[in-house]
């Protein structure tokens, strides 16, 4: 495989049989020193072989070796003659991030940091075992999966403003619970409003630097303000949907005569029953994930009320935005001057629509869509804004996080979870975790510096830096 550098942070993989389009990778030169980068680049080339892929198989600067698509992969498939691939979305369908602002300042929170984090731990179930915060009666999970966050709004768990500030308004069109297996429903039934395990977290953060005052103001964000970031997905519900349809599509791809370089790239032509049903089930899993993060916001609001003795409205605990980073969406984009309907697969990539786009909430439309990029728990996270360049070059997409540097196993060998906890506490960060081991797996040294990733997307114009967020307290799954 040949790789050509076409810009300071842009690399191209020219078309070689059986690729249909070139690969394009936005990255810092240090990518080529990273373990597993050859496999990740091969995965970019593999995606370029899929039927109906338009223009290029793209990867973001946090690219790393995944399964099927690389993590950080973006590809648009023609809605008429392309394919849909569950491996281009991943097991954790609509894994995503939401950022919540408050009217509290660092000095208000510092004396109550420990009780606040303790209350978060009690209110937001974490780890892979416990029940979620919401109990559903027979038939209600199916409705939640079809209706998304509006289902919760009707029951007092979400406001109109929450809906406006969630990608897709918190409900993906085309959701049909009949396409979801009994097993997926069984797994999801008790998990709405739970953080999960792995790299999922809830962090209390402070805005420690604002780089674009006008945009920050539009997002309701200012220096010294305390915010909450929630990173979670569709839990067992989404994992089971992906498992079910990867299995079904292995056969569908073979029947359509599609040769797959990796079985995890299993896909089906857009007009096949397998594709239609997968998209209906995927939309359900997306709605489950939006609702899951919304329920956690509801719990967080309650925790603030308990610790500060005031209503959450008075404390200004409002949703800035909620973005998905594992999803396949029907979108209209300009291709060679013409509008084309495509299915944009984003796997470990965030939608980053630019100013003026009708899908950006009205109050943010002048500045562009908020993009939330979680970093590791010791350093920082970022708030960015979408751009016109992203619309032209990457189907309105940008990076999604820091990207791992060390495997979980290697991270455990560097330092124990107890040591990681002590180091974070020495830095003034309160840590709560269901699993001590998870702390070393998710330690700052296991991740690349998110600033390096953000600097690349800012430099190439795929998004614009707005504010830097520093952790005060971490709740780990």
């Amino acid at each position, binding site marked *: 495989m040949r790789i050509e550098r076409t810009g300071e942070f842009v690399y191209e993989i020219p078309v070689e049989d059986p690729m249909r389009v070139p690969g394009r990778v936005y990255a810092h030169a240090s990518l080529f020193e990273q373990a597993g980068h050859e496999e990740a680049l091969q995965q970019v080339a593999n995606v370029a072989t899929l039927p109906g892929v338009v223009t290029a198989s793209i990867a973001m600067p946090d690219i790393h*070796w*995944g*399964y099927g698509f690389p993590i950080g992969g973006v590809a648009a498939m023609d809605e008429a003659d392309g394919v849909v691939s569950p491996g281009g979305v991943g097991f954790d369908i609509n894994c995503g991030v939401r950022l919540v602002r408050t009217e509290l300042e660092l000095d208000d929170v510092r004396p109550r940091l420990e009780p606040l984090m303790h209350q978060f731990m009690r209110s937001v179930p974490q780890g892979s075992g416990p029940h979620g915060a919401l109990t559903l009666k027979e038939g209600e999970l199916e409705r939640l999966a079809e209706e998304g966050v509006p289902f919760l709004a009707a029951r007092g768990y979400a406001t109109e403003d929450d809906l406006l500030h969630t990608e897709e308004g918190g409900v993906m069109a085309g959701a049909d619970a009949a396409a979801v297996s009994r097993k997926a429903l069984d797994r999801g039934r008790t*998990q709405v409003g739970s953080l999960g395990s*792995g790299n999922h977290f809830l962090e209390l953060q402070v805005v420690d630097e604002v780089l674009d005052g006008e945009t920050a103001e539009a997002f309701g964000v200012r220096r010294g303000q305390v915010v909450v970031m929630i990173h979670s997905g569709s839990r067992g519900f989404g994992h089971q949907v992906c498992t079910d349809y990867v299995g079904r599509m292995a056969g569908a791809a073979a029947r359509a005569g599609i040769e797959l370089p*990796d079985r995890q790239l299993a896909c089906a032509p857009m007009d096949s029953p397998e594709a239609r049903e997968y998209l209906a089930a995927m939309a359900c899993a997306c709605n489950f994930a939006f609702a899951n993060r919304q329920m956690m916001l509801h719990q967080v609001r309650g925790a603030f009320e308990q610790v500060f003795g005031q209503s959450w409205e008075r404390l200004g605990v409002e949703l800035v935005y909620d973005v998905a980073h594992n999803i396949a969406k029907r979108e209209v984009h300009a291709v060679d001057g013409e509008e084309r309907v495509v299915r944009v697969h984003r796997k470990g990539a965030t939608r980053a629509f630019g100013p003026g786009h009708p899908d950006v909430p009205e109050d943010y439309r002048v500045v562009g869509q908020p993009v939330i990029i979680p970093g590791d728990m010791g350093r920082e996270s970022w708030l960015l804004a979408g751009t016109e360049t992203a619309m032209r070059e990457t189907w309105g997409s940008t990076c999604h996080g820091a990207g791992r540097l060390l495997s979980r196993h290697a991270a455990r060998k560097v330092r124990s979870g107890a040591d990681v906890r002590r180091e974070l506490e020495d830095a003034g960060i309160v840590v709560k975790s269901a699993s001590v081991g998870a702390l070393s797996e998710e330690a700052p040294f296991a991740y690349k510096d998110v600033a390096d990733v953000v600097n690349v997307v800012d430099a190439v114009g795929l998004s614009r830096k707005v504010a830097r967020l520093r952790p005060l307290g971490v709740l780990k799954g």
Partner: protein
Amino acid sequence: MSVGYELVDHTADIGLRVWGPTVEDVFEEAGRGLFSLVCDPLHVGELEALDLELEAEAMDLLLAAWLNELLYVFETRRLVLSEFEVYEVQERRLRARVAGEPLDTRRHVMCGGVKAATLHQLRLERHDDGWEGFVLLDV
């Protein structure tokens, strides 16, 4: 051939390599390896057992399906599985009995957790002296 499993480094995920004299041994080891990443059993309380029957389009796909089935059992029956008895693995079908203690979130120590068994780099091979498999787990 001995019997066992090992976890293999992979940047974002975890590889599970399993081996044993029979294909059934390989499946049983895969179950143990998987649960080493999910939750450590305390070996207290009554074990609850259940019988499983699975089908897939090929034997290696059956290995991934088996692990995904065990994750399903963990999440829905809330059992920390510690005993895996695989009676028979055929080309497209397996029968097994698994057992575990009920999950007690106040006492059990959760490990990092596993989302799913993927098909990326999935392998199941017969050697002269036994069987070997590899599954990449999304964690």
